[in-house]
């Protein structure tokens, strides 16, 4: 992570090991937050320019949306949205709006973009977090087993399975699961978040939602389970070759004890940062899954925005999801700093 930025020659001189020195310095979390600021700015800037890149300006789009063709009205809109000002002035006012969490107006839905997004955020988050939890748990377990087992057959089976899981198109997997479990076996509902007309409260309501969640979560989880299995396996194999594992074995620790007390903590630590990096892909996966299973989340909202050419809404979703993922990344980095004793010196 953040190491003292010393010229390497000084570090590599045998055993200088400056790392055991703790020096007073800027807290790690402040550094990390400061590093995130330019990224947020970049995201916002890119959004702004994507909006300008669209054919016609915003006023044209909105005029089209509201079905009014009068040039005067277009001019009026243009003025009210500042489109007749310089690009820079528009940019500054855009930045100001973003700071107030004002993401603009969705004409198709007749609601502010921010409100629409906030409504859907929870259900997408719920789907993603559940899938993530399942995939981390199962993926790390399977990866650990594959990396540690001496039975080549077990390792081979897990590796091949994860390679295939990694290669299956998510939406297709979802469709196939629907064919099997909803159409053929009729065990589970094929889509939606709850049954229409069914009681939405109490245990029955919770169970109903749970039944609807099984397929989309499972589907999303399979893909990320495959990723975590592969990463965990590689990490375990790498750590098995480290000197301290030999030390543990030399003091008489059994294979199991060495795996549990020495390999696992190190492997899990390396998984923490990877979790943050996978989130963008997880969100992408959830877009297709929501479409397949008619799950009322951000992904569906994005697709309906595409269908109605509601660019304002679409870019709002891109902005919010990117910043959301950035924040989670920040959190995983900070929790890594808390979990890894080696970063403590700089925390």
């Amino acid at each position, binding site marked *: 992570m953040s190491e003292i930025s010393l010229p390497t020659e000084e570090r590599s001189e045998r055993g200088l090991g400056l790392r055991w020195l703790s020096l007073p310095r800027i807290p790690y979390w402040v550094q990390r937050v400061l*590093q995130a600021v330019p990224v947020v700015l970049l995201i916002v800037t890119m959004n702004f320019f994507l909006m300008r890149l669209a054919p016609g300006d915003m006023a044209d789009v909105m005029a089209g949306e509201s079905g009014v063709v009068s040039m005067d009205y277009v001019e009026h809109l243009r003025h009210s949205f500042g489109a007749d000002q310089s690009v820079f002035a528009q940019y500054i006012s855009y930045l100001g709006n973003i700071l107030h969490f004002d993401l603009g107006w969705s004409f198709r839905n007749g609601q502010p973009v921010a409100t629409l997004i906030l409504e859907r955020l929870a259900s997408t988050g719920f789907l993603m977090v559940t899938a993530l939890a399942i995939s981390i748990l199962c993926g790390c377990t399977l990866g650990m087993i594959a990396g540690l087992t001496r039975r080549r057959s077990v390792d081979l089976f897990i590796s091949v399975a994860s390679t295939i899981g990694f290669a299956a198109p998510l939406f297709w997997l979802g469709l196939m699961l629907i064919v099997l479990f909803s159409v053929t076996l009729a065990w589970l509902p094929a889509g939606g978040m709850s049954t229409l007309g069914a009681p939405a409260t109490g245990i029955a309501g919770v169970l109903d939602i749970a039944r609807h969640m099984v397929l989309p979560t499972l589907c999303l989880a399979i893909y990320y389970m495959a990723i975590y299995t592969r990463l965990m396996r590689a990490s375990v194999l790498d750590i098995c070759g480290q000197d301290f594992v030999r030390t543990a074995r030399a003091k008489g*620790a059994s294979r199991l004890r060495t795996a549990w007390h020495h390999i696992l903590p190190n492997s899990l630590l390396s998984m923490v940062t990877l979790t943050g990096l996978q989130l963008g892909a997880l969100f992408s996966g959830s877009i297709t899954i929501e479409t397949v299973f008619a799950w009322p989340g951000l992904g569906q909202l994005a697709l309906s925005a595409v269908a109605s050419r509601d660019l304002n809404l679409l870019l709002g979703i891109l902005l919010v999801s990117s910043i959301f993922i950035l924040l989670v990344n920040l959190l995983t980095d900070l929790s890594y700093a808390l979990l890894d004793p080696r970063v403590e010196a700089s925390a």
Partner: protein
Amino acid sequence: MNHSLAPGSEPILSVENLTVSFRSDAGWRPVVRDLSFSIAPGETIALVGESGSGKSVTALSIMRLLPEDARLQGNARLGGLDLAALPEKALQKIRGNDVAMIFQEPMTSLNPVRTIGFQIAEALMLHRDMTPPEAQAETLRLLDRVRIPSAKSRFKDYPHHFSGGMRQRVMIAMALAGRPKLLIADEPTTALDVTIQAQILELIKLLQDEEHMSVLFITHDMGVVADVADRTVVMFEGQAVETGETGRIFSAPTHPYTGSLLAAVPRLGAMTGRHRPLRFPVVDRVTGLSNIPRGTPDTVKADAPPVLEVSNLTTRFDIQSGSFGRVTGRVHAVENISFSIQPGETLALVGESGCGKSTTGRSILRLVEPERGEIRVDGEDILRLPKNRLRDLRRRVQMIFQDPFASLDPRRSIGASVAEPLLTHKLASRAAAAERTVALLHQVGLTPDMARRLPHEFSGGQRQRICIARALAVQPKLIVADESVSALDVSVKAQVINLLLDLQASMGLAYLFISHDMAVVERVSHRVAVMYLGEIVEIGPRAAIFGNPQHPYTRRLLAAVPVPDPSNRRGGRRLPEVETVSSVRPLGYAAPVRSYREIGPGHLVQAWGPEWDVPEIEAAPHVAIQHDRFQSEHVNAGALS
């Protein structure tokens, strides 16, 4: 084979006809062949050999910790148990309990995310049936025994809080946890500084006496062998070529290989009475015949203007925090040092890790940017050179690095690597460069047909020769050799040093020879500068520094060097317990103003403060003895000249 044991005692460990092979594409490849030796209670056996001789594999096979693609044949008996036949469960009861092991890399041998308390207590709970509170109390006792200060407060510390020497102490504490009968120490001091090495060796000896342990000591260092071992097994290409009492091995080696190994070992004090560097004798490994090393001519042009003049050089590094970090501290890597080198002269820069010797070398080539001072090459101040004229500097000064495996581009043929300086400086056309390359390879003792091969096809010594050829391509006047022979096996080291001396004689090269190895430095240098925490504490003619050391640090450094002579052991001498001090300073730290005293012609010593008095009192008897010995040698040297 000599199997004699102390009378009346059963061996702790006896190894008979041990053969270890690894599976390779071409079938089973033996790494250890037909090895036999035994260790009596309380005895120390050294397994000595160069890299690839199979000594570490032997240790791992006694622990049965070999990888799965290894095959073990023969017998290894621990007491009445046949280690080779035991099931895994029984082995776990033996490892860390009857037999414990410490390793070469203290920096990586401890789990970075577990406290050292946990790691030591783990060993106790595994073998001594202790509850966690009992294990904690016993851990603290063990930390005390390995002389880790304020053990109680360090129980919950992580390995990265400890220096290399301290980590090795933690490893030793862990090894003692099961009260082992046998301790296997695999190169335990190789990665440590010489003063720390001396302390660790002494600690092992002390604990061995207290615990009545046997020790199997694996090393490549004949000095360490002479210092610690009762008996010695010399290994060569997987076989024991000679086994016997250590004193006898050193005084009358019977196998030619042992002879060649001993001949190549630099000995501190061997140069007394000589004025010029001395080549190493070359011993034939088969016949055992040795040549008398040819003397070197006087290469130093004392009257000519100096090739390098460094004055008041200061290089500091900021310690920043992250990308927007402000500077929170500074490493005073090089602090106000001055020296000069004459054409044809070798100045050695010695000191321990972190003393700034490498940074000095790099500053001279402007691989790092010095903060202030002057560096004059042929009278021209190269610190004033704009970046784009650095090329000129790099035609006059060249550098050879430490790691021969890392200093050649793995994807370029060695011919291309050697020709690269010529083409970069446009000193030759492609065809002419190819011709020059052939000549250069020849000059360093390689054949021209090797030019097309890739670096991985060469041994460490050959690679270092290639690096020398590359440095010679631009015909420099000065070569900075940064630990250039430190990573090489002892016999290869001797050959490369001989080459460097020959090149100095034929080309009149000047060397800045950066090294931590005092014995090698004594052999090759005309003058020596001793560095400590970024400063030169003593500089002078080689004979004066080694014969009449003045600064307490120079004396400590010299006293810590293991002497490859079993009849002159350090036995019982107490070395000062010093921790590595670092040259990291807070912002705004003002380096103290230093004054130097001239002891003899060209022999300058920094005036030292009271901070040096304390360890000297502790070590007083020992330093006094050393001092006297060197004094008398100095007198002798003086009388001869």
